């Protein structure tokens, strides 16, 4: 991408989000995503676990109506749309279209679920996980990509954003 154009896009984003609150100086901004095949269903499952309060802040910043009833159907669907727009996965070089399954709250965490048909090949997986980074610059996103008993992790933290790729060892 043209660097001048890239800067322009970035600055436009900063103006749009100028009202964003600061990062919490002393709080955990981290999220966990698990990507794993499900042999029972023949699907690739993607489950995001984020702190509920962080998600709440991010949803409002991203434009969700303040009046949206917390944890209501609209709120959960907004969480789904939010996550869908901020998580990309390529498998064996092909972008995967994820279908939103649902979202739920479990204690301090919000879980957001997606599935896709299981791709034929599952040796190389690329992840761009941008959940919550627009709200919290210090957000650390950890994506565990699982095949059998092997776990490979893509870590996206300040200074290490963008797409990360993992390769599974030969079977």
């Amino acid at each position, binding site marked *: *991408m043209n*660097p001048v154009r*890239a*800067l322009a896009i*970035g*600055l436009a*984003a*900063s103006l749009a*989000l*100028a009202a*964003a*609150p600061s*990062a*919490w*100086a*002393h*709080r*955990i*901004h*981290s999220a*966990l995503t*698990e990507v*794993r095949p*499900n042999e*029972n269903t023949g699907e690739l*499952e993607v*489950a995001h*676990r984020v702190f*509920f*309060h962080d998600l*709440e802040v991010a949803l409002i910043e991203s434009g969700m109506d*303040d009046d949206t009833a*917390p944890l209501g159907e609209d709120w959960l669907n907004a969480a789904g749309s939010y996550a869908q727009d901020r998580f990309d996965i390529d498998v064996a070089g092909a972008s995967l279209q994820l279908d939103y*399954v*649902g979202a*739920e*709250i479990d*204690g*301090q*965490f919000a*879980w957001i*679920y997606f*599935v896709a048909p299981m791709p034929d090949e599952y040796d190389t997986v690329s992840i761009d996980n941008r959940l919550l*980074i627009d709200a*919290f*610059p*210090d957000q*650390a996103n*950890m994506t*565990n990509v699982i095949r059998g*008993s092997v*776990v*490979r*992790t893509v*870590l996206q*933290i*300040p*200074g*290490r*954003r963008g797409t990360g790729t993992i390769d599974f060892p030969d079977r």
Partner: protein
Amino acid sequence: MRHLILAVVAISAFSANAEAQTIRQTVSDYRDAFRQLENEDWPTPNEIRPAHGAPGPEYWQQQVDYWIDVRLDEDEKRISGIAEITYHNNSPFALEYLWFLMDQNRFRRDSWDNLTRTVSSTDQISSGAARRMMRMQEWEGGFDVGTVTDSEGRALETRLVDTLMRIDLPDALQPGEEVSFTISWEYNLPEENVVGARAGYECFEEETENGDCIYLVAQWFPRAAAFTDYEGWHNLPFLGSGEFTLEFGNYEVAITVPADFIVAATGELQNPENVLTQAQRDRLEQAMTSEEPVFVVTREEALANEREGTDETATWQFRAENVRDFAWAGSRKFIWDALGVEQDGEGEYPDTVLAMSFYPNENEPIWSAYSTRVIEHTLDVYSSFSFPYPYPTAQSVSGPVGGMEYPMITFNGPRTVRDEDGNVTYSRGTKRFLIGVVAHEIGHIYFPMTVNSDERQWTWMDEGINSFLDFMTQRLWEEDYPTNEAEPDNIIGYMTSSNQQPIMTQSDAVTALGPNAYSKPATALVILRETILGRELFDEAFRTYARRWRFKRPTPYDFFRTMEEVSGHDLDWFWRGWFYSTEHVDIGLESIVLAQVDTGNPEIENALAREEEDALPESLTQRHNREAGIQTYAQRNPEVVDFYSLNDEHIVTNAQRRTYERYLEGLEDWEREFLESGTNIYLMTFRNDGGVVMPIILDLSFSDGTTEHVRIPAQIWRRNAHEVTWQYATDRELVRLEIDPLHEIADADRSDNVFPPEIRRSRIELYRSSQSTNMMQDMDLTVSNDSLDTRPERGGDDE
């Protein structure tokens, strides 16, 4: 059993004789999960830090006292101060220079933090990073040091190394001596929401607001760097992540601010008659004995204060004894409530602590409802785990910092939402966050403000221990309170990730500080308390650690050693697995074998052997012959039928009976009883797939409907950390087994935890099944009685 042992010996002896060639060793995969950490990963004990974990007879730490006069320039958003600092050298070493922390230098353009910031991506820039970058082009922070002079006014040489400043002394400061000197400085306050500090200002500039600001002031004066027995001078720069390593001392601080400000600070206010009204002083007095929080400044008074404004100033004087830092906050927006919290100060600490909260109208109504009450609850829980709260005040101040702790004062962020029509709401998440963050930050006044661990070296010692205790605090706030961060299952994702780092990693090198320094150590301590040691032993050991090291500086080894010594448990295996390794927990069931005792009784054993043989399928050839009506030779010629034809090899012989009788005569009574009991012996083989050794916790269910909960200590893995076989004897028939039934050890893969195996469903499958079971109805579709074809549901008004 005796026969079996003999057989093994015989085989071994035979093998050894047969192998008369060059020895080629096959190195086993033995792993000593219980190897001791003493003198290996842990430093050699000495008279300062002995092996039992308490401060030793030669323990020492420095003391640094401050007299400070500081002024806030509200228009310029600038702090100016002058300090007289007295450094007491309690170490056994002569000091030629003193190092001080100049943490505001992090906001200089040429700071190591600023210069080493890396970009997220080459094709995008985050809004936060862009905003900070723009601000740093037009604004610069960092200390402007004026003069540094000794007690006779002579200038002292200084040298700056990023966020550290060395002051050279004309004469070495000898052990037991003290030196005083004066420093003056100024700096620009950072706007917290833009540059991301741990303090700074925030102004309220929406249409309905009048531009007033809240000032949270911390890391605002040259603080003495720690000089310790284990590190010498602390010399890690402040890069924004690793927090602080500080010395205790006494403070006298005069804070000059606009006269209409309310100021909260570390310590006790010394001149209330100069800065508070008589009504405010009366209300504070009333709060000391009140059952519920009392407003010292009401909402109406705060709003009126915002409107009035003033050009005058007032000086608030505070005194704080034996604190490791000093922070303060000021604003004309503050509502202020207070509550006296009673405790048993054990003759050392206050019997009444003044819990106070300061917040703007924008935070109401949740702050007046919860903040001070959470302080009260937190003091109660933390003191029960450690020692009485040691200071006269405990404060929660609202501002732009999400959560940050200092002695006696904390900064906390949650806020209500106000829409364009002025409607005020707050979400479930905001309430939870407020309760959680106030508990967490107030808890930090115990750890590390009192138990003075080195935050920059070992973040887990304050954040992990504190997260453990704030988890306990929230669990005791309300039944089923939704806090689950330290529940074991929730750390599995981090522990199985390929980017996990050991908890013992230095703070600035940690890539995911949340799970590494907060959640994992907190979870480890929950497991240690609830599963490994039990509450009684854990609580006594933990309380001993806290009391031994209050107002002192512990290292991780002092914590580890104290927990072991007091509980009577060698826990090196636990620290090794949870704090030093990047392995995870995964115990799986490999096999179960049912064995029964060979009674030696031919009447029983021969019959069993016959049963086993009869249970085998008949020879297919013989069966087909019979079905075809083919007779055998013996059937056609019965004269060849003899004794052996009529009796199989399982017939009980007289010789067998005589052998059995001799065998019985040689047994002791208990052996005979055991033989006749018919006991089932289950040989269970477990695998340690994750690496971290942990207790094996079992739920066993039997065919008679009974159950048993078995807890096998982690020491079962001491000879083989990969696979063990454990025997369980019962006269009942085992029908089901589950490993870790209460989800208490963070077992990563539960698919092999159950016998007989059960189909496990993924979280998404469980979620789907918990949703409506009538998808057709949910999709507003219908079918008719005579077809499976779906069609849109009809409205109620249709025919």
